């Protein structure tokens, strides 16, 4: 809408009259009066611009823009066209034009050319509004330029900032607010506006510095902002940002201090709580982390009533000016389901199996609760893929000794994936090439993601069988266990560097070890030996497989070979062992328990007996067939 097109109606007030808004309107009941302001603005601007009426006109413009912002109560967006029109009116009154100038140039022209004293106050007020708009658009340069103009016009030379201090902030602080005229009341005083601008400018710049990785600068800016004028909610947000900043700087204790302050200021600032949990996690304070997460979950479950803001209500507030993606991501609210999962996952990681089981089962129960419980699956979610959650649950259940339950949970994963797994999946070395001659015509997302997904299905199903095998083994059902372990092996996968393939290889290894252990228990040592050998082929140097191989050989009474292998593996550098551990950690959480189970438990007794054997036979290692005992063994079998 362009108010200047309106013609003065019959109710128009003559130029120079203060009009009804001059006295009766105050900031309360904004929406009601807003329309009147707009009418008033239209009436005034319908007349040709004239210097005597301009202060009134600009004041009406200021107030009406404030009401527009206040009534919409949403983040300020776009360009303030009204301010531009106002500036053009000022130029019109002075006999100049500037239609084709940018708003920045317009301000420059107005502030440099217009010298009329009575216009200075309204122009400064309008300038503060313009700064609000530019800050909301993160146009810090334009804002600084405007305040440079405003202060220079007043007192050139004073605005020069001290070394190291933020230019925009010092300009803002140096800017002298014009005195409010009694005849032209403002709905939000320029003094307040200046304070809000200062806070917002510091907050915004702090966020920018944080994003750029200049944590020290960001920290000081956030501290500046925290000392400023804002609502409790914004203050809590600033403290949260301070906390994140300190965390990134490697000062977890300081970060905790800030996050605590945030929660003290506004307990509903739940992002602070989730950040605190992260810091505790970093510090390794398990109890505190779990406590924080539990608290967060509880708080999310309760629908806290929106706390009435105790700070005075302003039309323009800091929260309307500061809205950047980084802030949104810092203040991202976790879903209750996410927090529940985090609790479960952490418990499992820390080995608190009973708690983990409880949380995992709670989490799975959330699925049944209907649509109220949202389970975010997007990239920023803390949740892994849902089948992995099931497998982790099975892992937890198994560790807690609830083997039957674990088997049931795995059954769900297996039944869900079975239909989806192609009977044959060719994974070419160069998967990047899209023209694979395979049959799976890509429906969604092309061939490669489809194949990767199929590989994942394969891994999940195999892991399901693996867990079932271990569970049956624990239940003493060796036959069942061997069946399940065998199911993991029906796949033969070529060497491949895809992480999905690596996981599958690990599962094969673990199931081979598992099956071998069952065979050992059943006294079928030869079969066990074969399994351990296969396992070593898949993962040469795996300590568990190697130890079991030695044990199997020992039990087969092939003590000499056993000793040779044992010597070879015990001589292999311990670094490899560590490396194995490191690799083990990169494997999915649901495999960790299986890795543990596959550890060789009697390594010391085995070592002792072998050493005894070596001592008694005075066997000379140099005489043994130096290389490839494995191949020999394999041929023998």
């Amino acid at each position, binding site marked *: 809408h362009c108010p200047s097109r309106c013609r003065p109606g019959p109710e128009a007030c003559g130029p120079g009259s203060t009009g009804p808004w001059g006295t009766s309107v105050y900031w309360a009941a904004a929406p009601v009066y807003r329309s009147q302001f707009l009418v008033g603005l239209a009436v005034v601007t319908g007349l040709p611009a004239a210097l005597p009426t301009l202060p009134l006109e600009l004041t009406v413009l200021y107030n009406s823009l404030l009401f527009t912002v206040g009534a919409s109560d949403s*983040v300020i967006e776009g360009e303030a066209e009204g301010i531009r029109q106002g500036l053009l009116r000022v130029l019109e009154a002075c006999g100049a034009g500037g239609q084709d100038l940018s708003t920045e140039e317009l301000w420059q022209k107005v502030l440099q050319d217009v010298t009329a004293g009575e216009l200075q106050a309204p122009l400064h007020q309008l300038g503060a509004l313009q700064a609000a708009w530019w800050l909301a658009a993160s146009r810090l340069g334009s804002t600084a330029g405007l305040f440079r103009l405003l202060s220079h016009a007043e007192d050139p030379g004073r605005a020069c900032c001290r070394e190291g201090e933020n230019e925009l902030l010092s300009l803002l602080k140096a800017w002298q607010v014009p005195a409010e005229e009694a005849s032209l009341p403002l709905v939000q005083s320029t003094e307040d506006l200046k304070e809000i601008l200062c806070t917002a400018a510091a907050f915004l710049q702090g966020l920018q510095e944080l994003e750029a990785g200049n944590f020290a600068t960001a920290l000081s800016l956030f501290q500046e902002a925290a000392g400023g004028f804002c609502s409790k*909610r914004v203050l809590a*947000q600033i403290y949260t940002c301070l906390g994140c900043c300190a965390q990134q700087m490697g000062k977890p204790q300081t970060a905790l201090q800030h996050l605590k302050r945030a929660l003290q200021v506004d307990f509903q600032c739940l992002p602070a709580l989730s950040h605190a949990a992260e810091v505790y996690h970093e510090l390794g304070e398990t109890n505190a982390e779990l406590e924080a997460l539990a608290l967060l979950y509880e708080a999310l479950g309760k629908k806290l009533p929106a706390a009435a803001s105790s700070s005075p209500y302003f039309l323009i507030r800091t*929260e309307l000016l500061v*809205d950047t*993606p980084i*802030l*949104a*991501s810092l*203040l*991202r*609210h976790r*879903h209750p389901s996410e927090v529940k999962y985090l609790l479960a996952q952490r418990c499992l990681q820390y080995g608190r199996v009973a708690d983990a089981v409880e949380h995992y089962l709670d989490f799975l129960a959330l*699925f*049944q609760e*209907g*649509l*109220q*419980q*949202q*389970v*975010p*699956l*997007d*990239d*920023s*979610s803390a949740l892994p*893929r*849902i*089948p992995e959650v*099931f497998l982790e649950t099975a892992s937890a259940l198994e560790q807690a000794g609830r083997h039957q339950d674990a088997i049931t949970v795995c059954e*769900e*994963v297996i039944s*869900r*994936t079975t*239909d*989806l*797994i*192609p*009977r*044959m*999946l060719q994974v070419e070395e160069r998967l990047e090439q899209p023209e694979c001659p*395979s*049959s*799976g*015509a890509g*429906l*969604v997302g092309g061939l490669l993601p489809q194949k990767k*997904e199929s590989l994942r*299905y394969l891994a999940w199903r195999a892991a399901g069988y693996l867990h079932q095998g271990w569970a049956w083994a624990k239940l003493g059902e060796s036959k069942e266990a061997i069946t399940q372990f065998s199911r993991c092996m029906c796949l033969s996968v070529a060497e491949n560097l895809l992480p999905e393939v690596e996981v599958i290889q690990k599962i094969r290894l673990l199931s081979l070890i598992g099956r071998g252990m069952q065979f050992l228990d059943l006294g079928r040592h030869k079969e066990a030996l074969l399994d351990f050998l296969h396992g070593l082929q898949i993962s040469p140097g795996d300590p568990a497989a190697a130890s079991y191989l030695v044990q199997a050989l020992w039990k087969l009474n092939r003590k000499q070979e056993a000793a040779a292998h044992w010597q070879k593996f015990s001589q292999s550098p311990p670094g490899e062992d560590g490396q194995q551990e490191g690799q083990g950690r990169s494997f999915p959480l649901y495999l960790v328990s299986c890795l543990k189970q596959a550890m060789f438990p009697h390594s010391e007794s085995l070592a002792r007996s072998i050493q005894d054997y070596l001592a008694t036979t005075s066997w000379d290692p140099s005489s043994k067939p130096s290389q490839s005992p494995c191949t020999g063994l394999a041929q023998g079998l």
Partner: protein
Amino acid sequence: MAQVGHRVDYLAGFCCPVGGLVAGKPRVLCHENEIYLSNGSEFVYVYDQEGKVLKAVYRCPDQVWHVELLPQPRQLYILCAHSGIYCVSLDQQSRLMEQTDGDGQESNCPSSVFPVDSDACIFPDSSLCMFTLLNNFVITLSQAHGKWWMKLHELPHPEQESPPYRQVSEVGFCPGPQPGDEEDSPPSRFLPVLCCASSPGTVGSGEGLWCSGGFVLEEPLFSLLFGIDAAMLESPMILCGFPDGQLCSVPLKALSSSTAVDGCHDVSNPDPPVKILHHLEEPIVFIGALRTERRAAEDAEDEQLFGDTGCDCVVAVGHYGKMVAVKADQREEATVPELREYYLRGPILCAACSSSSRMYYSTHSDISAVDLDWVGDSSDPEDAESCTGVLPPVLSPASLSICSVVALSLSSRASEGESELLALSAKGRLMTCGLCSPEDTDVGLTPAEAGRRIKELLSGIGNTSERVSFLKKAVDQKNRALASLNQVMNVSAALLSSQEGQKPIACTVTANWSCLLLQDTVTISCLLENCSEYSLEEGWTLCVQLLASPCALEEESVDSATTFTFPIDQLLPGNKRELTLPLGSAADTKLDLPLTISCALYYSLRDILGSGSDSSEALDDLLPDDSPILSPDREGICLPLSECTIDMLQCLRFESSPPGPDASPPAAAPPAPPDPVETFLKVSQEQTEPEGVKASELPHTSGEGNPPPSAASIRVSSELLKNALKTSGSDVSLSCATLRWLLAENAGAEALSSREVASVRGAAPDGGEVQLLVREVAMNDLSPAGPIQAVEILMESPSLADMCRMHHAVIRRIQVRSERAPGSGPPDLRMQYLRQIQANHEMLLKEAQTLRDRPPLGEEGDATAEKLLHVYRQLRNPSLVLL
């Protein structure tokens, strides 16, 4: 393909707009015995199928876009255009009605129309485009900030006093490049389609699940389409079909609400839960699911035990007839979703899926049924082997012979064994169509059955007559269109074949002065003459384009063309039609003479479809495909007729009495101005309007009385003129003949022909005075053979611009004439003298050039302008003669 047996019953008629109902918004819902119907107006009707009465009418504040029913508690949810979703409790309303009907009055019509007021609006949101219900959840789709927003709201439990309509979650996503950026309002013609798909295990899918149009998809199709996560979450999926043809799926349990504080949305986060399944490239009008494979006997028992396990095939139908079906293919080693596109005859208005493998779709002319059960259908084993998929390679639609149905729904009474299709025709008639299976055969008729049969036949006749009238209308329209096309082709052929000679349809342009609205104006009259043997019928338009020619006075003038169009109702062979258009009055418009006027005939092809059918629906009717030839940009035939130039000489106006032969030169005695005000206006006009000459070139003569008239002259040898004008035999003097020739095209100069005149004074279109003087002179110095007789044409005007225009016009004429004149050999000339003159002129030209190249400044500028003007004046009065 077996003919689908059917029986049509008319239930009721509802009001419909003049052009009939338009598909998209009308909706028919059926629950138990009640039919809920909206016809795209602001009314929603509740019709009792059992009692065959209209039970209630609700009047909504705006056009109804969508209606959904929540059976428990009985509530209607109504989406109104640009206002939001309204909720009407049917139980409450029926109680109300019982109270009002308490006096026992039995009537067929509802007692009143219930207004749905703004209190009932539960989601006031003008950007809402579509919604659907899933149990006690409302899923809305709206368009804002260049994105689609899907929101999930929970309905309040009836016993609970919880805050109503809590928003659970929302997700914003942009499928494809734009969600309707070209229009700011949501696309009014096509709305997105929403549909809910759930997996068989979903909680409550057995008993309480209510989602009209929703379906249960069996595994593994569900996992294949939507991913294993959604399947394991047992999340219902929302399928969205957008007007741009994209088919998306959104898991309802994982609507990403990365909503931070202040409700600001994390825009950086793309739309991960939203998956694009397919792109149909045309507006999607329907999404449904079918059960294509019949279960084996033991499965059927299971089905009775555990309820329906769901559908195994998802279909989406586009408006122009493209259809896609997706089914899991488990025959090969890999389980993959098979996806097949079909092309049906469009445009498809609406569709419905049966509980079996049959889908019904409606076009303007028919309802057809297609069967996607292919494995069961192919009795030929060769066929089965040759095929490569689980879906039929082609579909064979079976006609139901019901035309122009805009809303379809499968009656829920269908579960009683007999399927029934509910249909709302474009004329507002609600009907049911019983769909007995092909294997049903008629046996002996009982009287009751016979009566029913007769009724069926009667309604069949009614249906047929409606169909006939529709088809007849379509045929008539096509005939009319063909006739129009024929005559257009005839006219075009006639005009284009006579490229060189006289065109059979001609347009002559003349300039006249006439009095319009008490003002004297130059008008242009175009005389359109049809000498061809075809008549110009309605639909032709005469386009007259006025183009200020680029050689006009301003150098940098852009071609400013104005086009006037005159519809021609009918112009029979041999007839003429004169059209007049004003060029602008003397007072206000600046006339940039000379004007180039081009005339052309234009025929709009859109008019072929008849004047009444401006909607694209009619286009759809005529051309099944949205053929790009008829896009609104290039949609007509244009035949150029003539082009001519109107210049100053044609636009001069003379006083009623032509001036006498002895009129003195005007410069010496300007005519006394009749009115001082007029004089003032004239003077000020001359001052303010530079008349096309650059301001800097104008002498500053303001306020010093009348400026000296500008003058120009041209000399033409008498010999040349005599030859050219062929006046040797006539008794008029050469100067008079020249003047007559110059003004021959001026309609006002007829008076000249009666008298011997050598000088005229006239008014230019802008009111300036112009003097034209022709006299014979003798050129002494030019030829050694003695003086050469020449005619000097002298132009004078107080306005420089008028004089220039005049000069231009005269030169143009002489150019044309001397080109045509047969040369008789130039007389002997004194070359020395000629060279001298030429040298003078070249010097003057050079001077003018340098003056113009150098932009004048300040005081100097005035002097420069003065000098330039002087040079030009000298240039305009050459001592040369045209021989």
